[in-house]
């Protein structure tokens, strides 16, 4: 009987993040056992624990009004913003690559679509530059720690990030050769961006596809391509989890914290411009058939991007609020 109650308490405790469990787990379990003895079943109680656990996870991500210690709050906010940016880019670049492939064949006739695509391309370039500017000092700081032998705790997340990045880069480079815009067509290379960039982006985000909802059509794909559609998001997750883990564990200087927080704020502006460009295209093209047809997957992508932008802005705002008090 007690064993069963312990197991129930342990199941409920899983709603909470590991750090919370390490601090409050034992006493919370005791409280739950006392509650079970008094009232064996309560959906309200289970719901309250689930809500509390999710809230504790959001707090750990720097997304609630419950402030963490300042430097921890900044790190949490930055890590969350990076995760949001990755989700945003995965869906956004998939959409953008599809459009740039179309432009390789013919420029869009609707002005709003052209404006939207130019805005998305400019924002994508800005975001790429910001990511490079953000990663460089991080890499230098991490490398410095490793050289001095003081960064053993960074080995795991760094290895994960590098493995994810290598798989994503090598795989995308390999599969970009199957890009529909290649093949020496006379119209090719008339697009908004170099064909290779569009092809690489298309291959890297091949998994963001409506084909998942059409298994029969998906079955007609080459097996290697379907395997890549499964592997590439896993590689992206490894990359993002590794980077977020590095951000959480790295010993930051106040100056580097401010610099990264500034870059993330600038990235939020780039995301907003990108999203506005995407909305412009979807509104202009609607369900009109053709190269620039907007489908259900694109509407879903826009919704995901809006959510990612909201989370990134919230995390960035809280990180900024704490950046002055850090260290």
């Amino acid at each position: 009987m007690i064993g069963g109650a312990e197991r129930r308490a342990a199941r409920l405790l899983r709603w909470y993040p590991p750090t919370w469990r390490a601090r409050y787990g034992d006493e919370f379990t005791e409280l739950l056992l006392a509650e079970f003895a008094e009232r064996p079943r309560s959906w309200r109680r289970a719901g309250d624990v689930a809500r509390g656990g999710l809230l504790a996870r959001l707090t750990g991500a720097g997304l609630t009004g419950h402030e963490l210690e300042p430097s921890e709050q900044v790190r949490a906010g930055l890590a969350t913003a990076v995760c949001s940016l990755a989700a945003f880019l995965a869906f956004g670049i998939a959409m953008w690559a599809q459009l740039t492939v179309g432009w390789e064949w013919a420029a869009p006739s609707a002005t709003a679509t052209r404006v939207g695509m130019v805005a998305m391309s400019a924002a994508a370039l800005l975001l790429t530059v910001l990511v490079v500017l953000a990663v460089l000092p991080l890499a230098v700081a991490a490398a410095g720690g490793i050289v001095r032998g003081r960064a053993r705790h960074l080995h795991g997340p760094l290895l994960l990030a590098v493995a994810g990045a290598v798989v994503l880069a090598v795989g995308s480079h390999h599969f970009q050769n199957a890009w529909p815009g290649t093949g020496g067509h006379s119209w090719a290379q008339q697009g908004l961006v170099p064909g290779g960039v569009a092809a690489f982006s298309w291959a890297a985000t091949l998994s963001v596809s409506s084909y998942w909802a059409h298994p029969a059509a998906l079955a007609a794909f080459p097996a290697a391509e379907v395997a890549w559609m499964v592997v590439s998001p896993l590689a992206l997750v490894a990359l993002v989890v590794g980077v977020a883990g590095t951000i959480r564990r790295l010993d930051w200087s106040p100056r580097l914290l401010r610099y990264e927080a500034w870059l993330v704020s600038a990235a939020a502006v780039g995301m907003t411009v990108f999203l506005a460009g995407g909305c412009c295209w979807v509104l202009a093209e609607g369900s009109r058939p053709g190269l620039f047809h907007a489908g259900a997957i694109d509407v879903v992508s826009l919704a995901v991007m809006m959510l990612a932008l909201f989370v990134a802005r919230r995390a960035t705002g809280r990180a900024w609020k704490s950046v002055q008090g850090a260290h």
Partner: protein
Amino acid sequence: MTDVAGAKDNTLGTFGRYAGPATLILSSLADGPKHGYALTKDVEAFAGVRLAPGTLYEALSRLEGQGLIEALDSDDRRRPYRLTAAGAGALKAHLNDQRRVADVGLRRLATGWGAS
């Protein structure tokens, strides 16, 4: 205005929707340290409110983070908490604010509605 222990008047105001549970917990701890279940039973006895476990610990972690309560060492898994001086000051300020609001409301009711 600051209280005797230096806590700002609006400390509990920053708790948002947890200001209610936080006030109940601080009031319960005002007469001595208690662990989670004892807190739940005491609050239920004096306020008629049953704090669910998730809500109780969300409020406890916030109060502890703000330095308004502190955990005591314990031989078993039930860890008791006690009020700090800052917590006592914050509770006093918050209850005084609430009393002012209650006094105004009751006075206006008595004037306009004849209630006492």
